[in-house]
């Protein structure tokens, strides 16, 4: 990987006795696409605003290219921001919006015109310069906001839930486009979102945050396949999280039965959280199953069925293309690589049971559009 560009050391942020950030340590490499992922109020936006210079940390340092920049005001930082609600200047046309930063830097007119047009081309809106901000759709305004930021050739682009206000289809298109733009211009993107799918699609590195602390840092694959605790497992995708015991390396006990798994390095008989992803579970006839349970709910999701199965009072979510009617007894089979073993944490027991599962669950998971007061 390339060299380190930004380092946050021991960042703390306290608003009115409320700890918003608690000892954030993080480094960000040059040309990396890094995502700060977490539910609203987790401190991700605050972290971004500290990097942008809009907020000062209560304690801790921000380094940019090895230089401490805590006291550098936003207009002197080599970062640009794309705001959640775009924050385009309504009284200027598109050209002037994009040219704003260049005019301040007194870029000669010919070069300014060329660079603005290049930026508009990059975001697929060539020739839109004369239009007014109001005449553009949300998605187009979003692209202009990106053009306005990258036309200044910053070393880092900060993006604060930039796709939050767009509809699903547009969001998917923009995800791909953003990633393309990032690779084209070759600058560091620091992206804030509460949408795990967005994070998995675009990022080189994901930083999962909750309650002002970093829960896990890793590649999308790492975060998904090897979640560090129950919070991460639950926040990234769907997870069944079951209490288990590590009897030996590669042997985990669930419901008093032994299962082969791939994880090693735990103490003998150590209580652990076991994550089983819904798509890693195969439904088999009752007599062939490692475990048997009763189907309590089936929801058709298009590609697969969400099947809720009751195993001795603990409800699992299974995602499979096989239909099992409600009330039927089924067996399940899980391959050794389907088990992900986590050490017990403060989050143990709070996630991963689908007893209260309903269609509303999906909406709850989405999180609110706006952030709370401290993050706004």
């Amino acid at each position, binding site marked *: 990987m390339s060299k380190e560009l930004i380092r946050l050391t021991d960042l703390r942020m306290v608003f009115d006795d409320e700890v918003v950030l608690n000892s954030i340590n993080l480094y960000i490499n040059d040309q990396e696409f890094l995502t700060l992922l977490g539910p609203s109020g987790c401190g991700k936006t605050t972290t971004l605003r500290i990097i*942008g210079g*809009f907020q000062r940390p209560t304690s801790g340092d921000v380094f940019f290219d090895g230089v401490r920049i805590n006291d550098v*005001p*936003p*207009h002197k930082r080599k*970062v*640009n*921001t794309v*705001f*959640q*609600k775009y*924050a*385009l*200047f*309504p*009284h200027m046309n598109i050209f002037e919006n994009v040219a*704003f*930063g260049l005019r*301040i*830097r007194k870029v000669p007119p010919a070069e300014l015109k060329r660079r603005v047009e290049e930026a508009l081309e990059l975001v697929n809106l060539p020739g839109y310069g004369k239009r007014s901000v*109001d005449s553009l759709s949300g998605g187009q305004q979003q692209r202009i906001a990106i053009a*306005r*930021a990258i036309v*200044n050739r910053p070393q880092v682009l900060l993006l604060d839930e930039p796709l939050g206000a767009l509809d699903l289809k547009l969001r998917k298109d923009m995800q791909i486009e953003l990633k393309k733009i990032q690779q084209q211009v070759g600058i560091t993107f620091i992206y804030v979102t509460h949408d795990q799918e967005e994070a998995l699609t675009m990022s080189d590195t994901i930083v999962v945050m909750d309650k002002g602390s970093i829960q896990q840092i890793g590649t999308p694959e790492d975060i998904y396949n090897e979640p560090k605790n129950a919070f991460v497992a639950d926040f990234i995708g769907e997870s069944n999280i079951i209490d288990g015991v590590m009897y030996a390396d590669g042997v985990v006990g669930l419901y008093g039965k032994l299962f082969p798994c791939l994880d090693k390095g735990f103490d003998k008989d150590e209580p652990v959280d076991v994550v089983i992803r819904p798509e890693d579970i195969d439904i088999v006839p009752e007599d062939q199953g490692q475990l048997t349970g009763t189907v309590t709910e089936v929801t058709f999701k298009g590609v697969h069925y969400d099947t809720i199965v009751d195993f001795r009072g603990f409800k699992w979510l299974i995602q499979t293309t096989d239909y099992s009617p409600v009330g039927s007894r089924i067996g399940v089979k899980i391959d050794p690589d389907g088990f992900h073993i986590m050490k017990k944490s403060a989050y143990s027991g709070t996630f991963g049971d689908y007893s209260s599962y309903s269609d509303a669950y999906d909406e709850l998971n989405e999180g609110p559009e706006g952030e709370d007061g401290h993050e*706004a």
Partner: protein
Amino acid sequence: MKKNGPISRIYIFLIFLFLYAPIFVLIAFSFNDSRSNAVWGGFTLDWYLELFQNRSVLEALQTTLLVSVLATAIATVAGTASAIGFYNLRGRARTVCLSVNNIPLTNADIITGVSMMLLFVFTGQVLAQWGIDFSLGFPTLLIAHITFDIPYVILSVMPKLRQLDPHLAEAAQDLGATGLYAFFKVVLPELMPGIVSGMLIAFTMSIDDFLISYFTAGGQTSTLSMVVYSMVRRRVSPEINALSTLMFLAVLLLLILINLRQSGGLRRSRRAGRGPAAEGILSLANEDLDVPAQDR
């Protein structure tokens, strides 16, 4: 419900009749070729001619325009600055400040006028001990006008501030602008419609104020409305009709201007899919009511 039934038409006609009949009578008699206010003696422009040869009227016109323009200019700057200050206060302090701002608006003019006069006289006496001459006159008149103009400016800038995207200034700074540059280049243009409305309202208020001016102008200075008042006290001259007609038309013109601006702004913002943006002079009274609602 049936629209425009005959009864409702007559009702509306009567309302407008009562509202505007006095003004139409006044305008008609300003062209009357007779000293009487009851008998029509033919059409004439003599009263207007006479009016423009009347030194005291012309002087008063000059005073009125000067004090209104100066007071409006100063109040617009001060009011905009205060509005921004109020807006950046936190929760309770902001509500308190806005309420305090609204009290002078609802206060009776005569109380404002008398209390200001007392304050000026008192200050004059205190300053006299240091040998400084401060008596009622143009400066006190100007101070009084600035004082009662400021709340109107604040009230009309405030809604624009609430609509303002708080990230606009940050976005400008992010792109390399200093705080001051961001304010003038990005924030101020967004507030401009509110500032202009406030300015026009303040100017209208200044131009037709009588009571407060009467108490604070002193013996040497008089505004147009004070001249009218003193002319009426001697005898009702048709000159007054002419003067009143002109003042009415001037204020009417201003009001039309304000309303045109606002409906234009409203149309623009509707087209942009935003909420109603314009705050009309008629909605002024409701402005303080929507403070808590908007604060949520």
